[in-house]
Structures are given as C-alpha cells and as structure tokens.
C-alpha cells in the first residue's frame, strides 16, 4: 500500500525543481556563472524522477483499486481487467495532464542526456525553457486538477468505471504516442527560443533540433494513425476521420510539424529561411498547446470534452497566452537581427520547399479556421453552429493534392537552382504513365474526375519517388546495390515517408470510391447480399464479459458457396455505468475490410444490422506507419550521431 499523498508531495517538489530549472540556468547565462549553468542537468534529472514517481504512485493506486482517491473512483472499477485499470490513468482530465507533464519531463531528461555536445550555454538554456513549460503545467495540475484528491473517510466501495469507449487496446497506446509527439515539439520550440536568447541564430540550431523534431513528428504520426484506426472500429460507423475538433487539434501540430521538418532541412543545409524556421517552431508548439487547451478546457462541442470546468479553461488559456505571447515577443525583438544572405532560384529545391511550407501553412490555417469558427460565432452571440465535414473535405482535399503534386518534383530538384527544362524532361514520362494507368484502372469503375485525378497524383508520386531512387543509384559506374547502400538513411527516410503519403492517398481514394454500406433488418436465417459477399445471420447468443454482458450475433459470410468468415458483432451493456456499447466485428484484408455493427434489437430475434465493405481501408493506416518509419529513419541518420558524438 502506497499512500497517494506521496504522489502529490512528489509533484509539489517537482514543481519547485521546475521553478529552479526555469530560473537558475537563465540567471547563470546572463551573469556568466558556470555553476548555475551546469545546474541545469541535475535539476532536470531530479524533476523528471519526481514527476515519474508521482505518475507511478497514481498507477499503483489504479492497479490496487484505491477508490479513496477521487480520480481513481471516477475512472476505474474493480471489475476492469488490469491493463485497462492502468491505462485508465489517462482516461480523464487530471491523469492525462499528468501523462503530458511526465512525457515532457522525459523529453527534457533525454535532451539533458545528449546536451554535452552542444556549445557552452545552449544546453542549459534549452533545458531552462523546458523548465518554464514544466512549471506552468505543474502549477496547472496542482492548483486546478490534482489527481490525488482523496475521498476520506467515506470512500465509495467501487469506482464509476472507465468510459466503455476507452476500454480498448487502441486507447492504451494512442494517448501516450500522441503526447510523445506533440509534447516532443516542445524540444524544437526550446531550441528555437534558446537560439533567440543566446543569439546563436546560425544554421547550427537547426541541425540540433532536426533529429528531435523528426522523432516527435514520427510519434505524432503514429498517434494520429492509431486514433484514426481506433475511431474506425470502435465508434461503429466505419469512418476513419470525422473532422472532430479533437482530431483537428492533433492534425494542426502535425501539419505545422511537417512544414517544420522541411524548413529545418532547408535552414540546416542552405542557411536560408532562418527566421521563418524559428517562427514555425514556435507556431508548431503553440498549436500543440492550443490542442491541449481545446481538448482539456471543454470549450468545443466535442466527443472528447469530458470536463467543462471554467477555471481550468481560463488557466490553460492564460498559460497559452504567456507562452505564445512571450515567445512571439522575443521573436519580434530578436529575429530582426537575422539576415539570410543566400539567394536561390525560382526552380531550385529551396523554392519547392518554400511552396511546401506555404501550402502546409495554408492547410493548417484552414483547419484552424474550421475548428475555431464555431467558437468565434458563439463569442459574438451569432448562434450555435457547427462546421461540417464537407467544409474540411472541400478545402483540404484540393490543397493537399496540389501539395502532393509538388512532392513528386521537389526531391528531384537540386539546391540553389535547377533547370526548368531538365525538370520537365524528367517529369514528363512519370506524369504520362500515371495519367494513363489511372485511366485504365478507372475504366472498371464509375468515372469520377476528382478521384481519377487524385489517383493519378498518387501514382505520379510513386513513380517520381522510384525515378529519383533509380537516378541516384545508377548515376555512376558502380553496382546498384553498392550505391544504394551508400545513400544516407535520411534520404531513405524521406523516400519512405513520401511513399507512405501515396499509400495513404490510395487508401483514401478507394475507400471513398469503392465502399458499400447497407443497413438492413435481419432475423435468424436471413441472407443479405452486399457486393460480392452474402451475409447470413445464424442467430444470437448471450455472453458474459469481465465487466459487461453482451448479446453476440453470429453472422456467416459467403463468397459464392465458400464460407470466408464468421463474424461476431456484439451489443454490450457495461454494468457499472449501465451503458450500451456497440462492438463492431471486422474481417480485415489487404484489399478490403468487411465490417459489421449491430444497431438496435428490433424484436425478440431480429436486429438492425449495418454492413460495410471497405476497399483498401488498411492502406490509410499502412501509409501512416510508413511515414512514421520514414521519420524515425531520418532521425537516426549517421551524421547526427557523429556530430552529437555521444
């Protein structure tokens, strides 16, 4: 038995260390005091240790069913399986903030561990900036959302249970991955701020920040992919993206982060876009904070807005204003000293990456606009509105397609300047091939010019990626494999990530083009034909889960005469909350998913049943995984290791 107060106490101590971390190295920097500067590392380690101690204490409280802790009693139940008990820690507001700060401190510790290779003052100042952020969030937790509040002496015998929607593997790993991503952008932010403070605004800060940014981006990509996958099978409507404000909250930092990894590349290699990259690093982390604010303050009409406590909202808003406002002020004062002297041509790679940044920024802003528009509308008392998914689809689709077109060209172009004629020469064949091949595929489908164009663009990207690789490996008189092995990991990371985009795009196109949805009433023995498959309801049985009872329908699926699958969708009643949940049944495949979810029970034996066939839906997430792998591969390029020199 561990007392939860230990966790609370550890958090208070951690806050004190965070305050010290935020101030001492800064004072040390301005007074040129070495002792204060070198204090940054140990302070970071102690702060991290204390925060994780507190995290561990709360995890133990969950695992041992300590319902005297208010937060545990609200989000757990003695009947929950053990892995859900522990992951229930981040199933609510207080715990997910603790996870946030725990991950922030882990990033800070990782930076501290690697900081020796940085020139004198940079490491400590970076850590101090992370310390400032940590201080803000620790204050927030301690003053408004402590997860350690106790219900004594009369504590409930059992907990209220975790929201059944969250009782799922996807939700065990999705939030930590997502937070690893968007909290990870704090490192790039801290490097940018440190560069502004120390005045070391040459290209070197970009080189230090790059691997960190890549890794965070990879985590965020994984987090978003997992979230989309979870929504697909758990919400029971077979959609993979809903343009829900909370999804948008994670998409915005991803878009800005994608722009950031590209502009960091330009800044590192060519020394241009310097002040823009700094601004983008600030912008990206600000969007992460905004995401936290939107999700945690409950200001939006959203499925994820658990809490609607105004003091919390005001606190995070204040934090947001201080951090973003402060860093922008610093930027305004310092960035004017930066001058880029390098010029570049209109068709050089710098120009293509500039287009990349412009388009990604536009995409971010359109999502931001659509997400905040209801808030603005409400604030001016113009009424309650919601901005529907069609808005996002209409705006996001064409702009991102344009982005993908340029994505084909940019990697083949050369730094500084590329001959326009040469680009046309190299791009013409892939373009023709893509259009022709896509037309061929579409002769088998209902023709839709938008989807046809999208598919051509996806193919174009694949061809251009392949072409680029072949050009690079067959340039000299060496064997292909020897040259292929010599290409840097960073380059393969880029290829992989770009290829992933094409894979996701193909998934998106086929899902929207070639999916069928049928809602039918089915009694035992009824047979329904959907697409190439016949579905037969065999009957339904009652089953008993650890913390729920369920009715399970048994549906046999036939392709011709052959039975290809037996699917068992469920309707569950979770006991603690008396809440109904639909558990969809899936029969996954590389080129198609069969998806069945139960609606209401219409009579003693008949159900309303929703049957989907989704073409290529797995490709959407497969592409996400490829992008993540690409980001990681690029981050672990050898040259960072040598330069960082562990």
């Amino acid at each position, binding site marked *: 038995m561990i007392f939860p107060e230990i966790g609370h106490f550890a958090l208070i101590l951690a806050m004190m260390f965070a305050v010290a971390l935020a101030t001492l190295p800064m004072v040390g920097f301005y007074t040129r005091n070495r002792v204060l500067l070198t204090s940054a590392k140990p302070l970071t380690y102690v702060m991290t240790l204390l925060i994780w101690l507190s995290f561990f204490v709360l995890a133990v409280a969950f695992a041992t069913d300590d319902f005297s802790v208010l937060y545990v009693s609200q989000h757990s139940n003695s009947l929950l399986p053990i892995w859900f008990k522990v992951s229930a820690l981040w199933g609510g507001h207080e715990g997910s903030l603790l996870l946030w700060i725990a991950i922030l401190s882990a990033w800070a510790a990782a930076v501290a561990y690697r900081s020796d290779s940085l020139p004198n003052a940079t490491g400590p100042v970076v850590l101090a900036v992370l310390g400032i952020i940590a201080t803000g969030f620790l204050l927030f937790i301690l003053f408004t959302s402590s997860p350690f509040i106790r219900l004594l002496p009369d504590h409930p015998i059992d907990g209220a249970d975790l*929201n059944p*929607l969250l009782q799922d593997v996807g939700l065990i790993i999705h939030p930590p991955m997502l937070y690893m991503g968007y909290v990870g952008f704090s490192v790039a932010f801290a490097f940018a701020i440190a560069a502004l403070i120390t005045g070391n605004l040459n290209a070197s800060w970009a080189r230090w920040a790059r691997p960190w940014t890549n890794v965070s981006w990879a985590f965020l990509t994984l987090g978003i992919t997992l979230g989309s996958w979870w929504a697909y099978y758990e919400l*029971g409507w077979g959609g993979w993206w809903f343009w829900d404000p909370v999804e948008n909250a994670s998409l915005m930092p991803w878009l800005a982060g994608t722009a950031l990894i590209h502009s960091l590349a330009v800044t590192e290699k060519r020394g241009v876009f310097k002040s823009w990259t700094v601004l983008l690093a600030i912008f990206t982390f600000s969007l992460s904070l905004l995401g936290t604010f939107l999700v945690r303050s409950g200001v939006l*009409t959203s*499925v994820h807005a658990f809490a*609607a406590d105004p003091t919390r909202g005001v606190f995070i808003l204040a934090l947001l204003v201080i951090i973003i406002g402060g860093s922008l002020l610093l930027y305004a004062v310092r960035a004017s000293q930066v001058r880029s002297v390098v010029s570049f041509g*209109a068709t050089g790679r710098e120009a293509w990456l500039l287009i990349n940044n412009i388009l990604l920024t*536009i995409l971010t802003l*359109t999502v931001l*606009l*659509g997400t905040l*528009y209801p808030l603005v509308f409400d604030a001016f008392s113009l*009424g*309650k*509105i*919601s*901005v*529907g*998914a*069609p*808005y996002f689809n*209409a*705006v996001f689709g*064409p*702009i991102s397609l344009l982005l993908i077109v340029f994505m084909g060209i940019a990697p083949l172009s050369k730094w500084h300047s590329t001959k326009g004629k040469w680009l046309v020469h190299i791009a013409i064949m892939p373009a023709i091939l893509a259009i022709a091949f896509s037309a061929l595929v579409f002769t088998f489908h209902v023709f839709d010019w938008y989807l046809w164009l999208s598919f051509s663009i996806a193919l174009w990207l694949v061809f251009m990626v392949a072409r680029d690789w072949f050009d690079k490996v067959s340039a000299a008189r060496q064997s292909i494999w020897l040259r292929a092995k010599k290409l840097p990991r960073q380059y393969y990371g880029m290829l992989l990530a770009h290829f992933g985009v094409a894979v996701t795009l193909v998934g998106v196109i086929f899902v929207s083009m070639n999916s069928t949805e049928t*809602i039918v*009433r089915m009694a035992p023995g009824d047979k329904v034909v959907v697409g190439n498959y016949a579905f037969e309801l065999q009957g339904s049985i009652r089953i008993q889960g650890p913390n729920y009872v369920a009715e399970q329908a048994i549906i046999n699926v036939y392709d011709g005469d052959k039975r290809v699958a037996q699917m068992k969708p469920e309707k569950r009643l979770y006991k603690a*909350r*008396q*809440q*109904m*949940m*639909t558990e969809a049944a899936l029969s996954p495949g590389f080129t198609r998913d069969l998806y069945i*979810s139960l*609606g*209401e029970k*219409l009579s003693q034996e008949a159900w*309303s049943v*929703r049957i989907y066939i989704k073409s290529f839906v797995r490709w959407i997430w497969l592409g996400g995984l490829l992008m993540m792998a690409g980001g990681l591969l690029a981050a672990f390029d050898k040259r960072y290791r040598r330069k960082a020199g562990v």
Partner: protein
Amino acid sequence: MHPVRKKRMIAVGIILLVSAAVVSLIMYALSQNINLFYSPTQIAQGEAPSNVAIRAGGMVVENSVRRDPKSLGVVFTVTDYAHQLTIEYEGILPDLFREGQGIVAQGRLNEYGVLVASEVLAKHDEEYMPPEVQEALNKSKAQ
C-alpha cells in the same frame, strides 16, 4: 521595368492570385457547410428556415419513440420543456439514444414542421449533455 523588380512583381502577383483562390474556396466551403442550431421553441416560433440543413435538439420525450415494424424508420419527439419538435429518422440510432436523454439531430425541416434527420447524435455518457441542448433548456426555463 527593372528586371529584379519585374521578377518581384510576378512573384507578388502569383501569391495574390493563389491566396485569392484559397480564400474564395474557403469562404464558399464555409458558407455551404455551416449548420446553425435551433431549439424546439425557436422552431415553433418559425425562426428556423425550412429545407435548409440545420441542427436541432432537446430531451427525448418519454414514450414518444415509435418504430416502423418493417423498416428502420423511427419517429420521436424532443422537447425543451416549452415546445416540442417531431423528428423523423431512418437508420440506426446511436447507443446512447434513450428516452429522457439529450440529443442533437442534423437534418431539414419539411413543410409540416417535422425535422427529417440525416444524423442523430447522442454522445458518450449519461452525464454528458450536448451544450446547445443545455443552453436551450436554460433559456426555455428562464421564460
């Protein structure tokens, strides 16, 4: 004109053109896809346009849910305790749809003042109340 200045003019022109295109695309998409929320009282007083996509909601009235035995059609009534609104829907209702629960529906009003819903939303847990519905209830109570 000076060649550098000409180059710049072209660049500025292109940027202006692209941003104009983007802005008009956004404005168009926004104007097409904003759904205003109306309470049953507002609808009863004729404030809501008919045959335009809107959102409406309230508490589902006890014993008002009627199903068509042959199809998936369902009709129910929602209230803000001042006025009532009938909603027609065909399809599967969400898990948390229940009599006495607050819901929001998206759809169009027909000529009889019935909301023909394309989507019914009842979200997450019993304590959760759609904010629009909460506000509508508060308003009708205040009157």
